[in-house]
């Protein structure tokens, strides 16, 4: 039987697998495994690492990693955040640091090692890489430059600036891209082997394809290339109902694509696989129904259908965005069970590992 690391690497390379790997991307439910608050998890790298390992052991999926939230880079630039116990931190809407279009030009390079939460994320990454050993492929999540810029300017204002001050926005995106590349390189040096990069603005809910590519296309190409040249697998993610899939593929330089909704003009998932199956595909569960509206049996049945549609090679089963914090853990387990059943494997009782230091 393959290890999770071997299974994920084979999937990224569209090679044969013993069973379809499962990656249950989540945004905070993992902390329930250790009973800690969101704030504790995203300010302490070691706790975050242990939390994610506990979550992985609990459900038996194929991915672990240290990921805090989308705001680490914005905070490193001085953006004040509001921390909550039950939700991820977010920028203080009264204190955006980019107060005018001119400020996009004032984003100077920063030393990430001076940023406390980046240091913690790096520390957690190094720890999880060591504990995961040869078994699991450590990952992290990164975000497209638009997201960080919006966290420092305010999303609504940024969107309006895209119409009124596109050249200023471009300058800001370039500055953020430089630091985003540095962010990813340091985490890869710390042991990350694959990065999920969110294309949150690359969809019809936020802007036209033309505007997205015109403003950010070159930045994303640079970011994609930098991550892959550093030796990590790159999984591009877009969780909107109308993702610009063709545009994302035109940006090139990635190994896998994650989504939950079919793009316009694609009739079904079989057609999607035919059109885009040159890279590994990850999804395509819509998170809310998966976590909160289906039974275990329904998740197993629908997951097997997804494996039939997009697998078995070049496919990672999972939610197309974060598994809900209030989701049923049993439903996360059901995806793993479905993968095993589809491959004719026996479903073993789950184990909790203390060998990785959970009890230390």
């Amino acid at each position, binding site marked *: 039987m393959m290890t999770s690391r071997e299974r994920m690497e084979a999937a990224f390379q569209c090679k044969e697998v013993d069973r379809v790997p499962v990656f249950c991307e989540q945004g905070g439910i993992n902390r329930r495994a250790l009973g800690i608050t969101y704030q504790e998890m995203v300010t302490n790298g070691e706790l975050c690492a242990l939390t994610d390992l506990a979550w992985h052991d609990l459900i038996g999926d194929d991915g672990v990693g240290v990921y805090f939230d989308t705001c680490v880079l914005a905070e490193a630039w001085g953006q004040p955040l509001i921390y909550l116990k039950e939700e991820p931190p*977010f920028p203080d809407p009264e204190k955006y640091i980019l107060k005018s279009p001119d400020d996009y030009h004032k984003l100077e390079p920063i030393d990430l090692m001076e940023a406390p939460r980046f240091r913690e994320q790096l520390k957690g990454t190094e720890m999880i890489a060591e504990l995961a050993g040869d078994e699991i492929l450590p990952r992290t999540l990164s975000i497209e430059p638009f997201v960080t810029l919006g966290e420092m300017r305010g999303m609504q204002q940024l969107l309006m600036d895209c119409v009124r001050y596109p050249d200023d926005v471009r300058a800001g995106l370039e500055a953020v891209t430089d630091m985003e590349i540095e962010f990813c390189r340091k985490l890869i040096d710390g042991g990350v082997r694959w990065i999920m990069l969110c294309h949150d603005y690359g969809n019809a809910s936020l*802007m036209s394809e033309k505007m997205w590519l015109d403003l950010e296309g070159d930045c994303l190409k640079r970011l994609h290339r930098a991550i892959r040249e550093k030796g990590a697998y790159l999984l591009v993610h877009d969780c909107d109902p109308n993702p610009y899939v063709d545009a994302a593929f035109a940006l090139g330089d990635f190994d896998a694509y994650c989504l939950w909704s079919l793009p316009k003009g694609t009739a079904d998932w079989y057609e999607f696989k035919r059109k885009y199956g040159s890279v590994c595909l990850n999804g395509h569960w819509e998170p809310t129904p998966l976590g909160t509206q289906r039974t275990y049996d329904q998740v197993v049945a629908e997951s097997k259908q997804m494996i039939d549609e997009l697998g078995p090679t070049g496919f990672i089963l999972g939610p197309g965005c974060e598994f809900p*914090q209030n989701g049923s853990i049993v439903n996360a387990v059901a995806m793993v069970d479905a993968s095993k059943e589809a491959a004719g494997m026996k479903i073993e009782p789950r184990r909790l590992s203390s060998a990785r230091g959970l009890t230390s």
Partner: protein
Amino acid sequence: MSDSTEIYSQLRTALLDLDEATVLDVTQKALDGGTPPPELIEEGLTPAITEVGEQFERGEFFLPELLVSADIFTKAIELVKPYLTREQSTSRGLVVLGTVKGDIHEIGKNVVKLMLEVAGFEVIDLGIDVPLQTFIDKQRETQAEIIAASALLSSTMPLLKDLVELARQAGIPAAVIVGGAPVREKLATEYGADGYSPDAVGAVRLVEDLVAKVRAQRSA
């Protein structure tokens, strides 16, 4: 072509081109030239912003263009307001709006607010992370016809149901509508909400219908 027809055509073209300077210039000149302010709004600015909304629905305009056009429209209305009498300033209805407790996502709520305001509704924006009782208290205080609540997270979405139940228990004479990325019409119906819209343009139509119903019920 009459002068006013020409003015309204210029307003339409300028707003669709997102040309703020021209919209404000034409509006001011129309006011200076004696165009009746209510007519300028109803036959000039409102049809133009309505067309923006229609282009948004058809996928020809996107969120950045919608936000900018709404911003321009609001500035034009600010120019007109001093010329309106008290009666002419009457809003089409009052909406109490907010994102439920535990949820800090506001872009969708803000877009709905903008579109309701440009359609002539008065909106009391309670902001984000709003305790459910605050929606009820504010409706009682203002006699708003509509309570509109959003949730973006699966974890906060069930609070929409709690809000509907709270409103029913309180017996307030207002309609409760819900929205947000993970919410679907079927779920809104299960929650007992009076209405749901997947987008901001649809929310305006929904509010138009429900305000009329609530007012009819109140006067019955």
